């Protein structure tokens, strides 16, 4: 979700501490591992691939730490950008190949806000998301999972705010059409 000024300041201090002493990077790692791992997992659907790409993302973060310049955006936005680029390059297997409803996230993570959304409906939703073009899927995940503003998503995806709005709109329109078709409604 959106970060407060205090959280951003805290984040800036953590980045500066890690720039002075790389062992302090552990705190940044602990703070962002779940976010980046989840984002990659929802995007690619494979835990193994999610682990590899998350590891590569944090390796890249360590490499770039001395050059990183604070620009008022959350550090996580930069991590998401690296992960997004790595996801695009990783062509070892098709996206979402391993995501099965029975043994995937839907069954082993808490679902605080989704009691109303039954498992079957959720499976259909994941299927429909899987069918979106990669950039629309990224925009949806960055808005709905990472809780980013259009400007931040634009920074991550190298797009304008207007382009991000349209990507999300097209994704939601396409999902609605897919889910309606599966429902058998017109």
């Amino acid at each position, binding site marked *: *979700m959106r970060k407060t000024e205090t959280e951003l300041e805290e984040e800036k201090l953590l980045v500066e501490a890690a720039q002075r002493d790389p062992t302090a990077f552990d705190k940044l790692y602990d703070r962002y591992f779940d976010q980046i791992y989840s984002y990659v997992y*929802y995007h690619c659907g494979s835990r193994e691939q999610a682990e590899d790409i998350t590891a590569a993302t944090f390796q890249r973060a360590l490499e770039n730490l001395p050059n990183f310049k604070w620009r008022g955006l959350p550090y996580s936005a930069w991590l998401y950008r690296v992960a997004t680029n790595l996801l695009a390059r990783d062509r070892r297997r098709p996206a979402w190949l391993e995501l099965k409803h029975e043994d995937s996230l839907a069954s082993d993570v808490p679902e605080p806000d989704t009691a109303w959304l039954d498992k079957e409906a959720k499976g259909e939703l994941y299927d429909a998301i899987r069918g979106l*073009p990669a950039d629309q899927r990224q925009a949806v995940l960055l808005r709905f999972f990472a809780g980013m503003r259009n400007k931040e998503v634009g920074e991550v995806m190298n797009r304008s705010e207007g382009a991000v709005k349209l990507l999300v709109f097209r994704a939601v329109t396409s999902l609605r059409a897919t889910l309606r078709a599966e429902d058998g409604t017109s």
Partner: protein
Amino acid sequence: MTHRNADLLSDAIDRWLRGESDALRSTMHGVAGALSGAFPEVEDQLARERVRRRLRAYHPEPRGPQEILLERAADNIERIARGVAGEEYVPWPALVGAAAVVVGAVVIAAYLRRRGVVEPVS
């Protein structure tokens, strides 16, 4: 109309991100509402510790600005390639329309120029 609807959806998502839990309830027939609760954070302690061990064994070599610029250029080329391959949305009709206008303008300009040379206006 598309832009207006995109703006409305974007505003609704922003309101939801600010904590208005029912901001997406009726947006786009509930699909946006479904998306708002579809991605709980995944906690995988084993993966977290495995990746931590990999990072500890990794000794980064600082990269120069030129390497970073090259990498960004590669990312942009990659993105264009994905657009051409159809993996990313590209507004082809708009691009083709714009290209047609440019080509048409060049052809007309060339025609008028040639006509001007051959048949000068008296």
